[in-house]
């Protein structure tokens, strides 16, 4: 206990500093613009096909809210039903506990290599690094995760972790790391090289590790939704399957999946239905893995649940729609957020899971938004991300105390606005700014105004405010 939560990467700079570097990378900007523009248009198209989309969103939010309000009941029910169908359930308070449980399970099978289904929960806890330290090599089998892993890189998107790479860069990584390199940088050749590379791993692995998109409390069924079929290989071929799942991922009944299996593919990959939906309930003799372990992960979730406004972040189904529409994400990319959870959802989820608003990097994340609201508009479970962002800002403000220059300036502004007479006096004083102006515009202001005037002019405050004019002519 007490170890640092790896949901934010150790040593990451604050968001503005990381953005400074990212914004200068023209290749990154162009890769991201292309990718997000395409997926945005596709998503809008498939969502528009459903005339009950808004009702689906309401249903999705309502089911998740019910889960969060009755999490204790549903979790116990899930444990019972998984156990009843031959699975073993483990409870992990934090990343360190979860990693240790998984490592022990892998060692018990005598394996030194495992295959992995793409999973946010295992990325969040830094499982691969923990396994590596314990002498077990984890092989990512999702194509984009494989690109990140082979490139010794970090993910920059929830769904497409290598979205910041173009195919020339991917070809380069594969040529450096694969025994059978790709014939060219054409997508088909790259995919073929990855396929050959992975096929050997699937056939030799004794243990697979997955996350879970959903788990049904009533039936103990675990659901993984994917596009490539590599996840299907992992959850069917090896003898032992270990699933690490955030405690908020469950749904009460089988029927609830109907809502989410419509919301998720349209929001994430802009598909009507995803190509592979794998569902398993414990173990089935003669079919698939013989041993199944489910690790239920807290890692900051119950603490997040206690935040009346912030708890809605736990409705998230990891679709990435908010990343794809976010104007900030589109320009900085995901690595600037310093966490496996980038973009708008990352800005509200990572600092809450990390749980320390005195941490400079985590505290910078809620400000990484212009509050334009595009994320809320597309969220399939209606997470009011702008509302949570401002709530977390208020928590950062509380953690920093009342003596920061910003807090003093805000207190002064509030004091001025609290009294119309003081406010009018401030307007008059402000109109002296005309002395700094030429042709009605100010092109230089001292700090912090310089952050504005470095790229934009500012209007000079006119001699007569509207209220002064009103008083003079109508008062």
């Amino acid at each position, binding site marked *: 206990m007490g170890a640092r939560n790896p949901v934010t990467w150790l040593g990451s700079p604050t*968001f*503005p500093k990381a*953005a*400074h570097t990212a*914004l200068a990378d023209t290749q990154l*900007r162009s890769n991201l613009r292309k990718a997000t523009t395409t997926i945005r248009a596709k998503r809008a198209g498939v969502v528009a096909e459903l005339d009950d989309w808004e009702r689906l969103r309401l249903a999705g939010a309502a089911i998740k809210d019910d889960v969060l309000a009755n999490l204790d009941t549903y979790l116990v029910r899930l444990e019972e039903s998984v156990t009843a169908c031959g699975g073993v359930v483990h409870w992990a308070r934090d990343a360190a506990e979860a990693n240790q449980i998984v490592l022990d399970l892998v060692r018990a099978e005598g394996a030194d290599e495992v295959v992995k289904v793409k999973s946010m929960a295992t990325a969040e806890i830094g499982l691969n690094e923990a396994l590596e330290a314990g002498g077990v090599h984890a092989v990512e089998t999702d194509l984009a995760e494989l690109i990140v892993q082979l490139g010794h890189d970090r993910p920059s998107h929830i769904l497409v972790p290598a979205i910041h790479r173009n195919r020339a860069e991917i070809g380069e990584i594969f040529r450096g790391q694969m025994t059978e390199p790709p014939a060219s940088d054409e997508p088909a050749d790259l995919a073929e090289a990855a396929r050959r590379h992975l096929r050997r791993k699937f056939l030799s692995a004794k243990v697979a590790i997955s996350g879970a998109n959903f788990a049904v409390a009533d039936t103990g069924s675990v659901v993984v939704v994917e596009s490539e079929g590599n996840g299907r290989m992992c959850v069917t071929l090896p003898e032992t399957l270990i699933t690490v799942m955030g405690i908020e991922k469950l749904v009460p009944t089988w029927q609830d999946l109907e809502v989410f299996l419509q919301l998720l593919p349209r929001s994430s990959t802009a598909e009507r239905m995803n190509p592979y939906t794998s569902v398993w309930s414990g173990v089935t003799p003669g079919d698939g893995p013989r041993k199944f372990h489910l690790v239920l992960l807290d890692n900051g979730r119950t603490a997040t649940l206690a935040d009346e406004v912030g708890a809605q972040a736990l409705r998230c189904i990891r679709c990435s729609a908010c990343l794809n529409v976010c*104007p*900030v994400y589109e320009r*900085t990319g995901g690595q600037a957020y310093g966490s496996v959870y980038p973009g708008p959802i990352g800005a509200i989820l990572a600092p809450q899971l990390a749980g320390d608003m005195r941490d400079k990097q985590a505290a910078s994340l*809620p*400000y*990484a*938004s*212009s*509050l*334009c*609201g*595009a994320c809320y*508009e597309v969220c399939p479970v209606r997470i009011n991300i702008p509302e949570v962002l*401002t709530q*977390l*800002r*208020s*928590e*950062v*403000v509380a953690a920093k105390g009342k003596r920061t220059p910003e807090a003093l300036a*805000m*207190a002064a*502004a*509030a004091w*001025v*606005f*609290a*009294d*119309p007479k003081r*406010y009018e006096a401030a307007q008059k004083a*402000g109109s002296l700014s*005309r002395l700094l102006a030429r042709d*009605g*515009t100010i092109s230089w202001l001292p700090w*912090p105004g310089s*952050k*504005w005037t*470095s*790229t*934009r*002019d*500012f*209007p*000079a*405050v*006119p*001699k007569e*405010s*509207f*209220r002064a*004019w*009103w*008083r003079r002519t*109508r008062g």
Partner: protein
Amino acid sequence: MTKLRVALFATCLTDTLYPDTGRAVLRLLERLGCEVDFPLEQTCCGQLHYNTGYYDHARPLASDYAAAFAGYDYIVAPSGSCGGMVREIHPSLCGTTPAVERTYELSEFLVDVLGVTDVGAYFPHRVTYHPTCHSLRMLKVGDKPLRLLRTVRGLELTELPGAEQCCGFGGTFALKNAETSTAMLTDKMRSVQDTGAEVLTAGDNSCLMHIGGGLSRMRSGVRTVHLAEILASTEEEPWVPATR
């Protein structure tokens, strides 16, 4: 018929920096038969404090707003952002008050309450329209501003590519994440210039201050003019640029 008693909620930004917009709203609403008052008790809706996380400072400002605007039939703001702050956020700060429920953004008031889209305006310029984020996504004004602009005599409307993307202002975001804000602004300015418009209009002076500040720095020659000023402009009394 008794005239509607309308209060102008100028917003602190327009009151202080863009008095011409305030006068334009007044002229426009009076021309359409409203009796307009400007309660001098008004200051700021608290959005600056709320959005930056200073809820304790925002709360009394929200209560002050409710007191300043009590007793009017309608409250009209030339801002989707401040109007959105009042309608969508004030209830969480100080409960639902009559003032909250009677607050309208200008284009909403014209189209939904007065039921007009042709306000008799004249503005012989090539114009493009930026739908500001809070107008679009908090208040959901939709195409109301465009419907108003389409009836303006002499006005040539050109479509803004990527119109729904944020300009990068975001209040203190423009200072705290100045470089990301500038990257967003740069793309917005490019879109504006691609339209070949002489004038960029919007329903929010805050966004116009941001985009206009960038366009001015670039010596782009594109002006920013608030929607209210275009709608107030007539052949008899045409719009004239502000002097500072």
